[in-house]
């Protein structure tokens, strides 16, 4: 039965792809056209992944495919959705239903170009030829195929050589469509040699409608370049999000990503990093605070293809109610990647007996002169610490909150943009209080900012 419905989802896509691939690819270069066609052929061949596949065994994302998604008539809507992070001075751009809000590309005073992927492909064909589709796919599956074959738009950010961004770029992705849209976005971020970029990537939904977002981002970080990528996920409980970042790092580049999942029906984050240049460093942080029947799946792979690189993966989660989470970290060290330092950690706190966590920190090592370690823990709040605090007059509730906050803060403390850190800090507190998911329109509650008092009187400690 399930299989049959799934077949129809696949068939629907194939059907749609066959009749519209010509129109979609009308402006493409021959190479991109070929990529699309090849991807479509692969998709026809194998369709969507199944739970039988090792990488998708515990994923709940696939359950969503049974819904009757609208894949054809998705429109770009002008939106005045305003997502303000207080005191954050950022270049804000909006993407609605997978379409970039502004038709024209924008060149910032610093020389950084931001705009729609579709437009950029036409105006900067040479950049596209050089970078588009060059990242190692890593998890080669039907979602990648369908995205490559049918993407229409997304965001494009280009930092030319030696350019340091003046302020962070905030991308707000909104889903606003009533009839269960299946949205494909394709994004490209290029940080040329010696450039520096800070990107805040927010996924939001406006209404309670169901949706599926299949977002695929390629990121190329040139020599000595630095990139900070913050992902904030705050979606309604009916939405599904597959967010794939494939990142290529060249020599001496620095990468820092933060994946913060506060809310969302079913989320899967794929972060694949290929370290292709010596002296590079990447730090991947993640935090997921989920409740109800939410599901968060973080799939991380760091490929150390060359020697002398460092990587850190640190993911933490708190699971409440019937929430489920999956963590799969994978460090691969190629045969000649000597002097690699790789660290991987995943810690979880489970608050109820209905919540479920599955964690798989993998190490695959083919070089001998390396220092690789991983740790993983699942547990509860430290009873002794609880007792200690209660003993000193902190109520049980507050003690609990304080401990959870301290647990989460280890991740948020690494955020480099101060205003954002404060914002996320505040959101963690609200989330722990159970206030964040109650707003009707948007979980951010930005339009009516209210001071939240985290009621712990520290003077009494």
């Amino acid at each position, binding site marked *: 039965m399930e299989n049959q419905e799934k077949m129809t989802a696949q068939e629907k896509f194939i059907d749609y792809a066959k009749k519209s691939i010509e129109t979609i690819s009308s402006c493409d270069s021959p190479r991109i056209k070929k990529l699309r066609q090849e991807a479509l052929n692969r998709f026809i061949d194998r369709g969507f992944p199944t739970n039988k596949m*090792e990488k998708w065994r*515990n994923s709940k994302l696939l359950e969503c495919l049974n819904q009757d998604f609208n894949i054809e008539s998705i429109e770009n809507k002008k939106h005045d959705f305003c997502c303000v992070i207080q005191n954050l001075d950022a270049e804000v751009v909006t993407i609605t239903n997978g379409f970039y809000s502004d038709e024209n590309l924008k060149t910032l005073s610093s020389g950084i170009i931001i705009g729609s992927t579709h437009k950029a492909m036409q105006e900067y064909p040479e950049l596209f030829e050089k970078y588009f589709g060059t990242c190692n796919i890593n998890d080669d599956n039907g979602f990648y195929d369908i995205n490559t074959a049918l993407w229409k738009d997304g965001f494009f950010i280009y930092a030319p050589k030696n350019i340091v961004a003046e302020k962070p770029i905030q991308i707000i992705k909104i889903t606003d469509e009533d009839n269960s849209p299946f949205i494909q976005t394709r994004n490209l971020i290029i940080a040329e040699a010696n450039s520096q970029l800070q990107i805040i990537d927010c996924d939001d939904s406006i209404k309670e409608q169901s949706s599926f977002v299949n977002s695929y981002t390629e990121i190329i970080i040139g020599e000595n370049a630095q990139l900070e990528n913050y992902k904030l996920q705050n979606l309604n409980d009916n939405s599904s999000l597959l967010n794939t970042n494939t990142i290529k790092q060249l020599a001496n580049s620095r990468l820092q990503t933060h994946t913060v999942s506060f809310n969302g029906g079913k989320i899967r984050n794929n972060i694949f990093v290929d370290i292709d240049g010596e002296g590079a460093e990447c730090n991947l942080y993640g935090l997921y605070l989920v409740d109800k029947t939410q599901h968060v799946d973080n799939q991380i792979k760091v490929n150390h293809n060359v020697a002398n690189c460092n990587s850190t993966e640190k993911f933490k989660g708190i699971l409440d109610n019937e929430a489920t989470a999956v963590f799969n970290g994978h460090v691969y060290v190629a*045969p*000649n990647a*000597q002097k690699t330092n790789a660290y991987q950690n995943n810690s*979880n706190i*489970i*608050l*109820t*007996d*209905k*919540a*479920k*966590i*599955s*964690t*798989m*920190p*993998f*190490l*695959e*090592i*083919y*070089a*001998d*002169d*390396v*220092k*690789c*370690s*991983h*740790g*993983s*823990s*699942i*547990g*509860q709040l430290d009873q002794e610490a609880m007792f200690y605090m209660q003993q000193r007059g902190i109520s049980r509730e507050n003690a609990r909150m304080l401990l959870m906050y301290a647990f989460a803060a280890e991740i948020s403390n690494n955020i480099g943009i101060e205003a954002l850190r404060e914002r996320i800090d505040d959101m963690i507190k609200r989330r722990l209080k159970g206030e964040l998911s109650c707003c009707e329109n948007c979980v951010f509650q930005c339009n009516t900012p209210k001071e939240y008092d985290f009621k712990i009187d520290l003077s009494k400690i």
Partner: protein
Amino acid sequence: MDSNPNENIIEQVTGKEYEFGFVTDIETDFAPKGLNEDIIRLISSKKEEPEWLLEFRLKAYRHWLGMKQPDWAHLEIPPIDYQDIIYYAAPKKKKELQSLDEVDPELLDTFNKLGISLDEQKRLTGVAVDAVMDSTSVKTTFQDTLSKYGIIFMSFSEAVKQHPDLVKKYLGTVVPHTDNFFAALNSAVFSDGSFCYIPKGVRCPLELSTYFRINAANTGQFERTLIVADEGAYVSYMEGCTAPQRDENQLHAAIVEIIAETDAEVKYSTVQNWYPGDKDGKGGIYNFVTKRGICRGERSKISWTQVETGSAITWKYPSCILKGDYSSAEFYSVAVTNNYQQADTGTKMIHLGKNSKSTIISKGISAGHSQNGYRGLVRIAPNASNCRNFSQCDSLLLGDKCGAHTWPYIQCSNDTAILEHEATTSKISEDQLFYCNQRGIDTEKAIGLIVNGYAKDVLNKLPMEFAVEAQKLLSITLEGSVG
């Protein structure tokens, strides 16, 4: 420190040839090559088995036909032609043996070369040895001593004849014939093995031990071990293997089932040193084993201790189902791979009972071109409250052509569980080597010292007799003549 002499030494110590390679010439009674229902009927009739056992085999065989060889492990397994294997071979000597003198002198010689003299063991160590030469038990010692306590320790086929009820009651209850491809194959064609039953409240006075050997060329060996510890019983069971040097690959798909009832404790230790193939990865044993124990009653305990140095390919996950409340399980493992050996090994701890505890200590050492992987599962069921698990998997790399991998799976569905997992991968540190050198210990000895120290946690868990052998094996595999 100059790295060149170091490399040489590693090459020297890792390049040591397999010492126990020899072939014993004993006439063997073969079944024709291939596998079909007739062969299974033949095996069953040769062993004079009851009808229900034949049914069990056929059911497994029919299930096996619909299965595919698993390919998820990080192993490169050359295609195996299951029709090109002889599924039954037994030494032709059929007459009953009363004393060691009647055993084929050549056979005794084989054991002597291995340092496992039955005679010696019998007289000096007080260990009962049920030596399995190919598929049929040739000699069982200490039967009398054991029978005084009501302990049943005999070859599997004998147990089928003498204690059919017990065998029927427990066979396939831990590893059902549908479990996996190799378990199904074994259930269909298992040749022989050991059966051990410790009655209620009995503490087995001896360390039980069986030596498995694969001897006839082209013979797959399908051992089946069943250990049952009834309420309050205790047994320490040891198993060790060495195999003669061969060019043709040999398939080994064994099953070990352990059942621990309330308050029972089973300690299972094994040293495995099968022929790993030569320096170029030619030949060697394929070891696809399903080992599983169940802590069925409250406060029961199972502990697996293994030292793995042999086999061309190892696919082995000794696991525990902790069904009883307050039950506990332990897994201690040292796996050494060299040359072109491949190992994908680990454990599974499935917590079903409340307050159950498990510990996993796994030490991998890879050298040469080998691939050594740990794959482990820890699962906490929704109703298993207050469970505790600690896992530690360390890998040591000797040489830059080998690989060490860790694939832990941790699944938790209970909010009161505390699970910890940690793993490290590194090489022998230059500091440690330098420190030893500085104090007059040469590099080869230093490596031996460090490797033995690294594996100490596990070696300490072995019974005395085995610990010595295990250390010797580690030495042979990695340290040349250094002991």
